């Protein structure tokens, strides 16, 4: 089996350069590629286009890349929790493209699956439909949406093997499997990296074919945005 293991996060992000287009997994702060983001902050590349459901918070997740002013354009569905984003956006230093969450997910899925365009009902009647092709199927209106692909995808899984197979846990799965398939070079970080053959082939969420590099991260913080408890 092909071995995708690389040394560490720094090695994995070695060829991400100024202007690269990145897919970044996670929903809010759940299931984000913590180690990959830290390694990127250390490299301090500029002019990135980042595609991520959220913008993180000011001092964690994608927010760290914003803080270092490494992002030129952000493609997301919801950036409500990030003040840094707001400041840069109002100052005209940051481009933003807002996409409905389901359309964002499907466009990324299409990128990985070789579907250049598809029709979806989300956005009909809203300002997001402006300039987009609208077509009726079976009496209902739909928008034409294009695939999303990227130079690199940074994803985070729970377990992985050296063949690049990934298993996610809980709702930390979210956008990660879609992005893994849509990156030209997909970098997976896992909490546990095991030799090929140790994971049950029936339970793989992301088949290794989509993953070009894999490493075991250390010291995951897994910060929680809103701690809510039952008495």
């Amino acid at each position, binding site marked *: 089996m092909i071995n995708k293991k690389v040394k560490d996060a720094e090695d994995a992000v070695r060829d991400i350069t100024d202007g690269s287009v990145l897919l970044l997994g996670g929903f809010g*702060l*759940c299931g984000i590629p913590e180690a990959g983001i830290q390694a990127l902050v250390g490299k301090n590349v500029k002019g990135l286009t980042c595609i991520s459901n959220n913008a993180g918070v000011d001092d964690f997740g994608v927010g760290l890349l914003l803080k270092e002013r490494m992002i030129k354009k952000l493609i997301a*569905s919801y950036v409500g929790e990030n003040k840094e984003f707001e400041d840069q956006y109002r100052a005209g230093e940051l481009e933003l493209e*807002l996409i409905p969450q389901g359309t964002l997910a*499907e466009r990324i899925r299409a990128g990985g699956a070789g579907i250049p365009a598809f029709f979806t009902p989300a956005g009909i009647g809203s300002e997001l439909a402006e300039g987009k092709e609208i077509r009726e199927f079976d009496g209902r209106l739909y928008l034409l949406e294009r695939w999303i692909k990227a130079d690199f995808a940074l994803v985070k899984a729970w377990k992985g093997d050296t063949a690049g197979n990934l298993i996610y846990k809980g709702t930390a799965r979210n956008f990660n499997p879609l992005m893994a398939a849509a990156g030209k070079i997909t970098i997976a970080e896992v909490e546990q990296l095991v030799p090929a053959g140790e994971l049950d082939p029936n339970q793989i969420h992301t088949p290794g074919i989509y993953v070009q590099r894999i490493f075991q991260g250390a010291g995951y913080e897994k910060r929680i945005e809103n701690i809510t408890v039952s008495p």
Partner: protein
Amino acid sequence: MLSKEQIACRIAREIKDGQYINLGIGIPTLVANYIPDHLQVVLQSENGLLGIGPYPRSSEINPDLVNAGKETISMVKGSSLFDSAEAFSMIRGGHIDMAILGALEVSENGDISNWKIASGLIKGVGGALDLVASDAKLLVAMLHCHKDGSPKLRKQCKFPVTGVRCVHKIFTDLGVFSILPEGGFKLLERAPGVELDEIRNKTEGRLVIKGEIPEMTGFQQQ
């Protein structure tokens, strides 16, 4: 007039046995607390979970398990986890029976505005655009007026529209309204102690009041 909790409690009465339901952020999230025990319903979280349970005890918090509001949650028996494309396949594909959402405004023909807007800046849409475009029966939970007193039940939405002709019923602190096919908010129930004149004064769009409007039962006046 109803509290937010009471709005949630009133909406819970709309839920039928066997439904798959998506609850939005805010008042809709509170609805989960009022679903009668005898009903078997499944709550979906569009980040990738079917079978949302109550908030966890503090000893059982799991950072890898959050809802669409990024709150820590638990799972019920028989739940399933999946990726975000699958989550929206369920929504777009007509598998979710009902969606309960918050809103900035609703127009008299059932248009909804529920972008996240802060100080004039649109900060996101999240999964709402997909939900309002789906086959799910759409219930809106919101206060009747903005903080400045301006009405949220509008002739036309002033905020950017998220979906058109999609709202089924609206539940506010003042009453329950359905959207008429020809346009207009039809008053179905009024909150305890709320007079028709107050509803008239605080509603901008076409308000239809026909016959005797019952007062909601089972609530103490706030």
